[in-house]
């Protein structure tokens, strides 16, 4: 899952980025409106965390421009503006949720999960796929009733695949969702994680689409 964090405050941005990365989200952090627009034009993000008070281009402008271009990118506003009119304006402009600073990191993470879940029309933070159960909040996976230990990135990859069952995802798409700009992408890492997952859940768990990428076969 790749998130765009738009926050001008260096300290909040740093801490928030750290908190999100610890949950295995790939986070791109930009500090003003222009950079946010550039980032949005370049990548397909799964969610945007948007501060409203930004230098240069205001957060609301970024939000309106994003909605004007269409697309259903979930947007969570994080701002110090706590007035009801500001909340109404933000939500009416197309934000999916609104969180007032100072907020609790756990609450923010829960809201992020809720928004991502809504995107793939799930109502619970637990994904069940055959004998596999994935708890997104606690980061625990169980296979045939037994807990399975997964490295964070493998967990993240599994989650991406589970969100799009039956859809072919290119290696490039998977990499984009797994890694932020600032992290080094080693070649074949996606292959390595796919190998790890197959080892745990069986060779047929993930299908290779030759020359394109991978897909999770839809269960009958």
């Amino acid at each position, binding site marked *: 899952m790749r998130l765009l964090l738009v926050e001008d405050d260096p*300290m*909040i941005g740093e*801490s928030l980025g750290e*908190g999100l990365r610890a949950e295995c989200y790939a986070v791109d952090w930009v500090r003003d409106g222009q950079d946010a627009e550039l980032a949005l034009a370049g990548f397909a993000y799964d969610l945007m965390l948007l501060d409203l008070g930004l230098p240069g281009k205001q957060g609301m402008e970024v939000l309106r421009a994003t909605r004007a271009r269409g697309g259903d990118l979930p947007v969570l506003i994080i701002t*110090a503006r706590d007035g009801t009119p500001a909340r109404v304006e933000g939500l009416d402009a197309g934000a999916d949720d609104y969180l007032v600073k*100072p*907020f609790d990191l*756990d609450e923010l993470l829960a809201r992020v999960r809720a928004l991502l879940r809504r995107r793939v029309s799930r109502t619970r933070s637990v994904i069940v796929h055959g004998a596999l159960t994935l708890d997104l909040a606690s980061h625990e996976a169980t296979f045939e009733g037994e807990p399975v230990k997964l490295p964070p990135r493998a967990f993240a990859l599994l989650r991406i695949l589970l969100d799009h069952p039956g859809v072919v995802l290119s290696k490039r798409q998977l990499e984009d969702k797994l890694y932020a700009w600032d992290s080094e992408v080693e070649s074949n890492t996606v292959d390595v994680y796919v190998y790890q997952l197959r080892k745990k859940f069986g060779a047929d768990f993930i299908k290779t689409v030759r020359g394109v990428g991978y897909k999770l076969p839809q269960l009958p």
Partner: protein
Amino acid sequence: MKTMRGQLLLGLLCATLLCVLGAGASLYRSLLEETNELADLQLRQLAAALPNEFAPDTGMPLAQDPEEMFVLQAWDDAGRQLTISPDKPQLPRYAVAGFAEVTVFGQAWRLYGETRRGRYVQVAQPLDVRDDLAAAMALRAGAPLLLFALILALLIAVVVARVLAPMARLAQAVAGRSADALAPLPVQDMPPELRPVVASLNGLMHRFDEALQAQRSFVADAAHELRSPLTALKLQLQLVERADSDAARGEALRKLHERLDRATHLVRQMLSLARHEAALTDGQLKTVDLGRALEAAVADHSALADSRAIDLGVVAPGEMGKVDKVEIEADPDALQVLLNNLIDNALRYTQQGGTVDLQAGLEAGRPLLRVSDNGPGVPVQYRARLFDRFYRPDGNDAWGCGLGLSIVRNIADQHRASIVIDAADRDSGRGLCVTVLFPAASATV
């Protein structure tokens, strides 16, 4: 102080009373004069009217008016008294020819005497009678005057109340206001004399309203600005809790301290801003040597300057003022805060290896402090806003709370000093040069 209504009523009623008394007195005087003339005439006529021959004890027809109390007497040429008014007090023979005033029986009398055909005739009347007569007449004539005076007093009371009604309305309008409702009072409804008062009141309320708005917006701004450091603190605290290794925890704690320092800095700056908003008292003013103040400031900031490899130092006043020492009357603590903020800013926004120069001197008789750097400077369009609270120019990596220059401005205002912001290098527009110009009067040399 007495009420205006009371003073007006008292003054006007006293004036009315004085006028009535004066009118009464002058009426009485003129009536007395008239009475005297008439009575004198009467005396003469009585004397003349005495029959040439009359027997003693002949009643006189004049007795019909006992109030006027005429005493008629006659003496024959042998000096024997011929009593005419038997039941009246008998006066001695004065033997005057014409009018005279005498005092008999402790009473002032007016008498007329003449000698006719050998007989001396004397007619006398007590002056009291005349006075009483005049007083009675004056009272009769003056009674309507008193009534008019009473009506006048009532009218005065009504007029005073009517004239003063706008004052009462104004007082009510002002008293009925809360500190929130500071809309101007209507000026047009007021009499011209009160308009300047209402206009001044409106002006005062306007200034008060502005100050109140400024205060409110500051509180709102402050509440808003406090959220960011608090958010950063809370997030970092939660990251500390989540740290899974000692190394990670140590690093997270270091960052937590950083964020706490920032929150502390913000609160300190807000307090400093508020503290330097009030005017200085004479007790706070001391003689301050600006050169010394600069040296102390350099010593305070040398560690920070070293950490950023910035050359911080004092430069000679140069050609602008060949003086050994510049001393001003100032609050030394406030001046130190001012310098600290200016130097902090310069150190914060100047690149590593830069230079920050401090200068104290005189310019056209005005003492000045100058802090200039060779950093990136501030574009002209942002300079006016630099003094706004919580204003941070875009695109700065250094964190600050945007209050430093607001504090500097407040302290400068306290000392009636002006601040000039310019580029240190005017050709390239680079570097920031802040000059605080104190009024010439504050110099002690």
